[in-house]
């Protein structure tokens, strides 16, 4: 009964969204305020209805109602409660429901918090937002309905793929989707602005917080996926340039560019047309990511044919919104007034370079991801585009980006002095040089470029701190004065500091772990020891055990450092009950220096077990960097200037921050 209730609510949501598309847009055209105001209750009721549908499905999962086809296909009665709940989005139909739920959540948030938006703009934004919801609700109901019943109901379900039964992965899709879908707001604002034929700095001020929120969640979502892959897939890799990974990475790259161009638009009214285009492209990439993942078109050209209806439907949605958006852009963009002027060497100029490099990187990933499919479709020739290609093309694009990253914030708006900015960065360069020397002193082995890569990351980290120190005039005035300036600095400045610092950490982590990873593959018998990463690891044996829904063989390793035992690691091999599938669980000992990572393999004919032992130096910097970027985004979002609906501060600042 509750399931039918959810099904009915989803159909009602479809109807409400249809009303929300038409009435407010018509109202905006006829300047009819009553019609425009329909958007708000419609957006809120749409959210409530989709939430009812979502929780009805979750109820079916929690109560293990196997008469629901979706539950029977993806759940199992013995599964722990948390994975029953997470199981809702651990499959195609349920994840689409989560997608529309988040979409509706963003729409309702604009309806509720967008009180200071001009009425016609707000009506149009919510109308476009509802159009996206309408398309995906139709998709859900027509091709991927999660509420279909089975008769007779099976006695138990098929279970969730065991490698997905993991806390990081359980919450990875909601974060990722919040990121993907959050860019829909930027898209809706862009389309609404094109319809209005008007765009100004206020527009950027409204769009920025939404873009920032989406970017934050996408950042942490991707990082969670990467972290999961690292400890779950059993060989310590953390990024594979897989099509589905690229699908989430492309909107992230474009969204990062959008975040920066919207900044220029807000502060200087420049790059208006470009920002609009970028907003359309970013969400189009999100849609394409959904298409890539949902249709399975890239994992195999053949799986597209397994369920052509779904793939074709999402392709149609993608073409409609991207094509429609770009057509509207082509028609209306030239009417947009261009704004503030600037010289190439300026804050604006540096942000143009940022955008240029990020967009080139996005295009590289896009073409690399789609090229094999396109080539096979056109000529029948089958090629592969994998990690070696992306590392070779994407990597070099990041070098100028990282070199220029600390320079941008040092340059004033309009017209800057490159030499002066570089002078201020001299200290960062010095620290980077010290890092290179230190690495060679510690004992460098491996690619000769690696120390310079790490130095680049250190330079970015130092640059972020120096920029902050400059702004508070650290060392130029008294400490008390600097502290006062530090307190008065807007939160967005701290957001920039943390986000840029996080990028530097990420780079250090990536290069360190890629270049200096230590690996041992060997057969070990109980009692044997191995020296790895400054640890002495002794294998004591293998035992069998049982978990809630799996049985496992786990090895026992005694980890010693400087002769004293500091940890016992128990990497294991599991076989789950339903579906019966093997997984490996790595044994990891984390420290600031890096991770000791142990994996146990099969028993060998001559006795003993195959063992893989790794030391991954500074690998945690990768996810810690992403986390710091996420926190930086959050702090920036809490800035009064960006807080939605917060009254503008009229009291002039006690100390005007000079425009340097």
């Amino acid at each position, binding site marked *: 009964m509750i399931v039918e209730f959810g099904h009915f609510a989803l159909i009602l949501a479809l109807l409400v969204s249809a009303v929300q598309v038409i009435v407010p847009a018509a109202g905006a055209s006829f300047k009819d305020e009553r019609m425009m105001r329909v958007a708000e209750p419609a957006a809120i009721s749409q959210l409530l209805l989709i939430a009812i549908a979502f929780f009805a499905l979750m109820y079916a999962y929690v109560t293990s109602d196997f008469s629901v086809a979706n539950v029977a296909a*993806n759940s199992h009665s013995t599964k722990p409660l948390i994975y029953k709940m997470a199981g809702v989005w651990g*499959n*195609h139909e349920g*994840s689409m429901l989560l997608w529309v739920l988040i979409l509706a959540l963003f729409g309702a948030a604009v309806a509720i918090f967008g009180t200071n938006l001009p009425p016609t703009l707000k009506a149009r934004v919510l109308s476009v937002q509802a159009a996206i919801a309408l398309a995906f609700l139709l998709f859900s109901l027509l091709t991927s309905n999660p509420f279909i019943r089975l008769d007779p109901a099976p006695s138990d379900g098929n279970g969730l*793929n065991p*490698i*997905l039964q993991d806390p990081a*992965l359980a919450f*990875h899709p909601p974060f990722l989707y919040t990121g993907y879908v959050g860019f829909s707001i930027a898209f809706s604002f862009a389309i609404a602005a094109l319809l209005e034929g008007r765009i100004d700095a206020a527009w950027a001020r409204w769009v920025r917080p939404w873009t920032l929120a989406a970017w934050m969640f996408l950042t942490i979502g*991707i990082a969670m*996926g*990467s972290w999961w892959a690292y400890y*779950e*897939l*059993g*060989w310590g890799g953390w990024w*594979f*340039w*897989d*099509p*589905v*990974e690229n699908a989430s990475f492309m909107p992230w790259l474009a969204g990062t560019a959008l975040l920066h161009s919207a900044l220029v638009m807000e502060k200087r009214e420049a790059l208006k047309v470009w920002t609009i285009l970028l907003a359309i492209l970013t969400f189009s990439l999100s849609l394409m990511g959904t298409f890539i*993942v949902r249709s*399975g078109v890239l*994992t*195999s050209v053949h799986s597209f044919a*397994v369920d052509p209806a779904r793939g074709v439907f999402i392709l149609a949605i993608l073409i409609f919104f991207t094509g429609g958006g770009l057509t509207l852009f082509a028609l209306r963009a030239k009417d947009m007034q261009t704004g503030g*002027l*600037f*010289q190439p060497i300026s804050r604006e100029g540096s942000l143009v370079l940022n955008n*240029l490099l990020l*967009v*080139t990187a996005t*295009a*590289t990933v896009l*073409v*690399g991801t789609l*090229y094999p499919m396109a080539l096979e479709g056109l*000529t029948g*020739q*089958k*090629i*592969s*585009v*994998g990690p*070696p*290609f992306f590392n070779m*093309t994407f990597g070099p*694009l990041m070098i100028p980006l990282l070199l220029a990253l600390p320079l941008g914030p040092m340059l004033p708006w*309009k*017209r800057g002095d490159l030499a002066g900015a570089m002078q201020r960065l001299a200290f960062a360069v010095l620290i980077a040089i010290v890092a290179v020397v230190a690495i060679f002193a510690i004992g460098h082995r491996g690619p000769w470029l690696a120390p310079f890569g790490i130095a680049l990351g250190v330079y970015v980290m130092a640059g972020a701190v120096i920029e902050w120190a400059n702004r508070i005039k650290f060392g130029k005035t008294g400490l008390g004065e600097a502290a006062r300036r530090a307190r008065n600095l807007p939160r967005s400045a701290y957001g920039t500091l943390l986000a840029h610092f996080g990028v530097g950490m990420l780079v250090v982590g990536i290069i360190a772990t890629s270049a200096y990873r230590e690996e041992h*593959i060997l*057969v070990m018998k109980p009692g044997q020891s191995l020296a790895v990463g400054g640890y002495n690891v002794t294998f004591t044996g293998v035992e069998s055990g049982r978990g809630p829904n799996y049985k496992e063989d786990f090895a026992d390793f005694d980890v010693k450092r400087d002769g004293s035992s500091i940890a016992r690691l128990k990497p294991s091999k599991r076989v789950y009950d339903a579906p019966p599938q*093997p*997984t*490996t669980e790595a044994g990891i000992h984390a420290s600031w220096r890096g991770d000791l990572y142990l*994996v146990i*393999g099969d028993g*060998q004919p001559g006795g003993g077990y*195959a063992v893989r032992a790794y030391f991954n130096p500074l690998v945690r910097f990768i996810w810690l960097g992403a986390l710091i970027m996420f926190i930086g985004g959050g702090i920036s979002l809490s800035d009064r200037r960006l807080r939605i609906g917060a009254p503008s501060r009229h009291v002039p600042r006690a100390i005007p921050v000079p425009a340097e």
Partner: protein
Amino acid sequence: MMHRYFAIVAFALTIFANVPASLAVQPNEMLPDPVLEQRARNISAELRCLVCQNQSIDDSDAPLAADLRRVVRERLVAHDTDQQVLDYLVARYGEFVLLKPRFELSTVLLWLTPALVFAAGLTLAARAAARQPAAEAKPLSEKEKAEVAKIMADGGP
């Protein structure tokens, strides 16, 4: 069935649709010579496991990947250069086996995308910059200077 399985994994994972690889390279596969073994590992990372979704033979525990790893090592022991090993595998399995496609007519666009996009963007930006009137602020005229002085003297507007 396999497609269905892969599809479910891909859907549920959203990203990282990799099948777990427990132990790709087995201890008994490894060559005694560490230099040769390292070359084998490097080559393996460039080769696609043909039956996997998107894994190199170095990462995959599929039986075919193990066979290919063995072939790579056999060729290296037979004194092939790295390039000869790659050529040997391309001859047997086609271009599809290379994770980094060769630069040829059919992959020109792929390889040149970064350069082309960057150049196009740079051209557009330069053209936009040329179109905009000089942002250089003109120095104040004598009359304006007098006006400023007057305003300043009055204690602001």
